[in-house]
C-alpha cells in the first residue's frame, strides 16, 4: 500500500507534530507567568504588590474622606478585626491603620488576605506602601498579631466620593502553599 519511504516521511511528520503539540501544552502553562508579568508591567491587577512612594505629596486639606475598614475570614478559625472601624482623612495624606488577627485554633495555619475595595475603581487612587496582604501570614496556635496598613488616597479621587471602604478577607492557604512571590 504505502511504500517504505512514505512511511518514513509520515513518521517524521508525526514526530514533528507531536513535539509541536507538546510545546503547545507547555505554552499553556507558560501563559501563567506571562500573564502575571504582563499584569505587573501594565499595572493591571497588582493588588498584592506595594506601590512606589511618590516624593511630593499634595494634601487636599479642604476635603475629608471617611475610610471604613472591614475584615472577614473565610474558612479558617481566625479572629480578624481592624482596631478602628473607620478613619477620617484628607486626600493625599499618608495614613496608618492597624488590624489584629488571632489564631483561635491549636494548629499552625497559613493565611492569605485578599483586599477588596469599594467604590469601583478605588484601586486607581489608592496607593498602598505597606500591607499584611503582601505576604502570607503564619500564625502559631493561639498567637495574636497586630499588623499595619499604610496607604494614601490620592487627591484625584472624584469629588463626589466621600466614603470609601477597604475590606480584607483571610483565606487559608492549602498545604501552606502560596503562589504569591515576594
Amino acid at each position: 500500500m504505502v511504500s517504505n519511504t512514505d512511511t518514513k516521511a509520515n513518521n517524521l511528520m508525526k514526530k514533528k507534530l507531536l513535539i509541536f503539540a507538546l510545546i503547545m501544552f507547555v505554552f499553556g502553562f507558560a501563559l501563567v507567568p506571562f500573564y502575571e508579568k504582563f499584569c505587573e508591567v501594565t499595572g493591571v491587577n497588582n493588588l498584592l504588590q506595594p506601590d512606589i512612594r511618590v516624593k511630593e505629596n499634595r494634601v487636599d486639606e479642604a476635603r475629608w474622606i471617611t475610610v471604613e475598614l472591614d475584615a472577614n475570614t473565610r474558612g479558617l478559625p481566625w479572629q480578624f478585626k481592624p482596631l478602628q472601624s473607620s478613619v477620617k482623612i484628607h486626600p493625599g495624606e499618608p495614613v496608618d491603620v492597624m488590624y489584629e488577627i488571632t489564631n483561635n485554633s491549636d494548629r499552625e495555619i497559613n493565611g492569605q488576605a485578599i483586599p477588596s475595595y469599594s467604590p469601583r475603581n478605588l484601586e486607581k487612587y489608592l496607593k498602598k506602601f505597606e500591607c499584611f496582604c503582601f505576604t502570607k501570614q503564619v500564625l502559631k496556635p493561639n498567637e495574636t498579631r497586630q499588623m499595619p496598613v499604610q496607604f494614601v488616597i490620592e487627591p484625584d479621587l472624584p469629588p463626589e466620593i466621600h466614603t470609601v471602604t477597604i475590606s480584607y478577607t483571610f483565606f487559608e492557604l492549602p498545604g501552606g502553599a502560596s503562589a504569591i512571590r515576594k
Partner: protein
Amino acid sequence: MAAVHGDAHSHGHDDHHPSGIMRWVTTTNHKDIGTMYLWFSFTMFLVGGFLAMGIRAELYQPGIQILEPELFNQFTTLHGLIMVFGAIMPAFVGFANWQVPMMIGAPDMAFARMNNWSFWLLPVAATLLVSSFFVPGGAAAGGWTFYPPLSVQGGLGVDLMIFSVHILGASSIMGSINIITTILNMRAPGMTLMKMPMFVWTWLITAYLLVLVMPVLAGTVTMLLTDRHFGTSFFNAAGGGDPVLFQHVFWFFGHPEVYIMILPAFGIVSEIIPTFSRKPLFGYSSMVYATASIAILSCVVWAHHMFTAGMPTVGQLFFMYATMLIAVPTGVKVFNWTATMWQGSMTFETPMLFSIGFIFLFVLGGFSGVICAIVPIDIQVQDTYYVIAHFHYVLVSGALFALFAGAYYWIPKWSGRMYNETLGKWHFWLSMFFFNLTFFVQHFLGLAGMPRRIPDYNLQFADFNMISSIGAFGFGLTQLLFLYIMISCIRSGEKAPQKPWDGATTLEWTHLPSPAPYHSFEKPPVVN
C-alpha cells in the same frame, strides 16, 4: 452500522477483515472509522438534543416546573459540552476520514492504527461525561466554559468532565496529526496543494488549529485539576491565583475552537455549491487565503469573550478591531459562494438547499457576531439570550446544516444508494422553519435583557420563550426524520450511479464506483 458497507464486500479485492463486532473494534479502514465517527456523533447529537429539549421544556413557562435549578444548570453545561466535543467535532472528523483519502487519491489515512485509537477514545470520554449525571452532586454545572471558581468548587462530576476533556483532546490531536500527514504526504501524483478540493484545504487548516490549541486546553484543565486536588492556586484567588487568568487561557483555546467547528463546514459548502451550480468554485485561491487568514486571526481575538471581565480600554479596542477584521475574509467567502451560483445552471437538491440555508443563516449569525464584537454593545448583551441566538446561528444553522448538506451529498458514495429526495426536502424546510422559530426570537429576548443559564424568567419574556420552546421541540423531532431518511436510504434506497450529481468533479465521483470500494486508490490516480 454494518449495513453501510453491505455492498462494499462485493467490490473489495482483498478485504480480509473480521466480521461482526470485532470488525468495528479492530478496523483500521478509514471508511469504517469514518462511519463510526458519524454514528457516534449522531448519537451524541441526540443526547445533547435531549438535554436541549429538557432546557426548553423548563423554559416553556416562567417558574420552575420540570428541572430543579441545579439539574437545569447541569443540563445547560452538558448540552454545550456534548454538542461541541461529542457531536459537531467528531462529525467533521468522520467526514475527514471518509472524504480526505478519497478526495486526494490516497489509499487510506497515514496512521491507520492511530486512527482506530482516536476513534475508540471517544466512547470512553462520552461515557465519563454522561455518567457524571449519576454521581453524587451530579454533573458539572458551571457552564460549558467551566469557569472557576465554580469549577474549582464543584463535585466529582467536574473531575469526570476534566478527564473526559483530556481524553477528547488526545483523540482530537491524534486525529489532526493523522489528517495533516495524510494531506501533506499522501496526495496522488499531480495533486498539488493548490489543486486540492476546498474541503481538504479547510481540514488541513483546521487540523493545524487543533494541534495548536487542544494542548492548551489540556493544560488548562490540568491546572484546574491540580487546583482542585493538589493544593495549587492557578485560579484560586485566595492562594494568589486569578480566575480571570482561566478565562484568558480558556478562550485562547476557545476562540480558535469555534473556527475549528466552522472551517470544515465552509469546506463542505464549497464542494456542494459548485456541484449544483455546475460551475467551478469562484475565486478558489482567494478561498484558500481567506481560510488561512480566518485561522490566523482566530488566535488573536480571544478576549472579546471577556469584555466585562475587566480589561484596559486599549485591550478592549484591540480585541474589538481584531474581531471585526475577521468579517473581511468571511465576507470574501460569502462573496465567492454567491459568485459561484451567479449565472450557474442551478438545481436545488437537498444538499444544495442545506448549503444555501447555511449561507443565509450563517451570514445572519456572522452579523450578530460583529454586533457582539462592539464593546459597548457587548457589555449590554453579555450573557444574555442575544449571545445564545448568535452562536446557535453559527453553530446550528452553520456547522450542523453544513453537516446535513454533506451527509446528503456523500451518502450515495458511502452507501451506494440514494436517499429519498422528497423526505430530504421536507427535512430541510422543517429544520429551516423550526430553527428560526427557536432562535430568532431569542435575539429579542436577549436585547430585552433575559440572562442565559437561568431556569426561571420574568413574566415579560413568557411569550417569546413559549414560541422558542415550540420551535425547539419541532426542530428536535425533525432530526428524527433525518435518522429515518438515512436508515431507509442505507437499507433500501435506490441504487446510486457512480456520479449521481452531474456537476461533481472531485476524485471520489470521477474515479470510484458507488458505493466506494472498501479499499480505494491502492494505485494512485493521476491528476492533471
